[in-house]
């Protein structure tokens, strides 16, 4: 019994630590004058504020859906584990029906009355599951895929990018060789091949996406590092006899941080989309996990039915669209603020 508790607590803690770490990092950065200025500028753009709010809402649901506790049933005076119950399920507990029902409908397609008096704001799907709940659960999949993959990509991409860009020569040749080889395999084909080999699963999907998408980050970090390497501050640090390690991580890394931030945020929406596409191909998350890709996949034939079943796809699409849109707008604003190329010329320093 204890092990189930530990399991759930650890899982909840993991998510809490990651999100807490993110918030802590932002707060720490905010103490730096330059970053504080950047944040203020981002905040002054209305669309950035709105999309940040939306992202926070999604994060909140994600958090609710990630904190769970085990549920037991008493059988013969013994506690038997049933499943993990998340906070989200505590707050919103729709009944399971038999089959389709339209949003807010009183009857199912089978003409049966609803299980309990509760109505389904977004209807139910072919298995009688509440569509809105599935869409909420999809948030967890999207954030897990996006977040976990980013966690895989970041260290690999940053490390190899820095090494290649800073040391040049052999290190550079090796790293560029590896990533140009990977890059020349069409991304979707490589993903398909990898998922075919790994099998379905969230972790598998993250690893496959990680393998295909660290390349982009690495390339960008390498390019930026090469630029920074010739800057005066690096030269003087070198002249002072600082170690390479120190120069790379203390001096160069903070100066390429903004590029990493922009790339990861804008990549996030790409990862969410990739999950949907792969799940549609049957290569993403296992079909029993509710994800937006699976919902869209289910609804392929539903639009041609009579009566038309539109709520499944529309709900999944809206949830996904709003998230990706917010991430894109937010990322765009950050890029406009941070990237001098797209920024309208500011005051000369």
């Amino acid at each position, binding site marked *: 019994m204890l092990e189930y508790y530990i399991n759930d607590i650890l899982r909840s803690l993991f998510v809490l630590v990651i999100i807490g770490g993110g918030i802590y990092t932002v707060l720490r950065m905010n103490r730096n004058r330059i970053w504080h200025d950047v944040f203020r500028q981002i905040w002054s753009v209305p669309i950035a504020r709105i999309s940040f709010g939306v992202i926070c809402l999604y994060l909140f649901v994600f958090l609710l859906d990630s904190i769970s506790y085990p549920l037991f049933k008493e059988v013969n005076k013994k506690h038997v584990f049933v499943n993990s119950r998340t906070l989200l399920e505590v707050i919103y507990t729709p009944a399971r029906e038999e089959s389709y029902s339209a949003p807010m409908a009183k009857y199912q397609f089978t003409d049966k009355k609803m299980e309990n008096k509760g109505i389904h704001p977004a209807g139910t799907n072919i298995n009688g599951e509440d569509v809105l709940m599935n869409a909420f659960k999809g948030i967890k999949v999207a954030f897990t895929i996006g977040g976990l993959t980013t966690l895989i990509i970041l260290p690999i991409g940053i490390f190899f990018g820095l090494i290649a860009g800073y040391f040049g020569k052999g290190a550079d040749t090796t790293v560029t*060789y*590896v990533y*140009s*080889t*990977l*890059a*020349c*395999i*069409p991304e*979707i*084909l*490589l993903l*398909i*091949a*990898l998922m*075919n*080999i790994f099998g379905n699963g969230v972790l598998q999907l993250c690893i496959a996406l990680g393998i295909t998408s660290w390349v982009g980050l690495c390339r960008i970090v390498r390019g930026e590092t090469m630029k920074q390497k010739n800057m005066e501050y690096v030269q003087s640090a070198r002249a002072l006899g600082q170690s390479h390690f120190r120069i790379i991580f203390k001096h160069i890394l903070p100066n390429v941080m903004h590029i990493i931030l922009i790339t990861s945020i804008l990549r996030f*929406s790409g990862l969410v*989309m990739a999950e*949907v*596409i792969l799940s*549609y*191909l*049957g*290569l993403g998350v296992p079909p029993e996990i509710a994800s937006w890709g699976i919902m*869209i996949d289910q*609804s*392929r034939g539903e*639009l*041609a039915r009579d009566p038309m079943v539109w709520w499944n*796809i529309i709900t999944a*699409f809206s949830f*996904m*669209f709003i998230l*990706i*849109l917010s991430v*894109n*707008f937010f990322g*765009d604003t950050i890029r406009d603020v941070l990237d001098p*190329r*797209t920024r*309208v*010329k500011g005051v000369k320093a």
Partner: protein
Amino acid sequence: MKTYILRRILYALPVIFGVMLITFVLFFYLTTPETIARQILGEKAKKEVIQSWIHMKGLDKPYFFNTEAPGIRKVTDTLFIDHIWSLVTFQFGNSYQDDKPIMNKIITRAGPSLTFTLPVFIMGLFLSISFSLIFAFFRATYIDKYGTFLCVLGMSIVIMIYIIGFQWLFSIKLKLFPISGWAEGTDKVRFILLPIFVGVIAGLGGSIRFYRTIMIEETTKDYVRTARSKGLNESLVLFKHILKNAMIPILTNAVMAIPFLFMGALLTENFFGIPGLGSFAVEALFSNDFPSIKAVIYIGAILYQIGLILTDISYALVDPRVVFE
């Protein structure tokens, strides 16, 4: 020029070899012949059937070193060399699906892919350049603002939604086009129009925004001010000075995509039943046809390298600053 291209090809060879290695690791190391055989023949297949299938496909050889073979064949009669050799000579063997030569299939499948991707490419390029020019011309006005807003909206929609949405609207609701399918001859126009439309629309948002960024970046360059200081009118400044500079990265970028037109588009082809290379890859995937997937990946890699070389050449052709060394 000739030596330059030759050198570029030489550079590409190690990368192609790397791809061969990766496919080897993917399809021989990470998947054993046993699992492949089971996936093809079914879980319940008898042991002898599986063994004979493996032997027939030549998958029972050792990876790198064949101790049983005589002489030089100790090294050559191995999975690895077979694999490399089949790729180098484009002898991909037969498909696991229907035992027909893969190379023939790829060649016949490239045709339908092209009939779909070529119009998408040309129309997409034309439309996105035109729109980005309009946005650049009206930069910082409401046209530009709402235009880019729409672009981000368009970019944030997964391709499947476009496909399902347009199929529903044009095929189910309006009954203008068949929902999917394929026909030979002029009849295929009926089938191809909707996928082309979807392909163009789905790609528009991203490329307009990308091209617009390039053009806006050009508008801040010093030469634009010089051109204005000569009293040129705005359209001459935009269509002559800015456009030519912006077209260099845009066109060379587009050149990169040309070889990939042969590869088709995975999802669109699959949804619309276009018998192109994209849907070939999906079919191969669903039937665990590893040699076919391998072949498609390999050809994709080669096309990518060709794209890179073409990009370099087109740079040298359109940009007076770049010369072949």
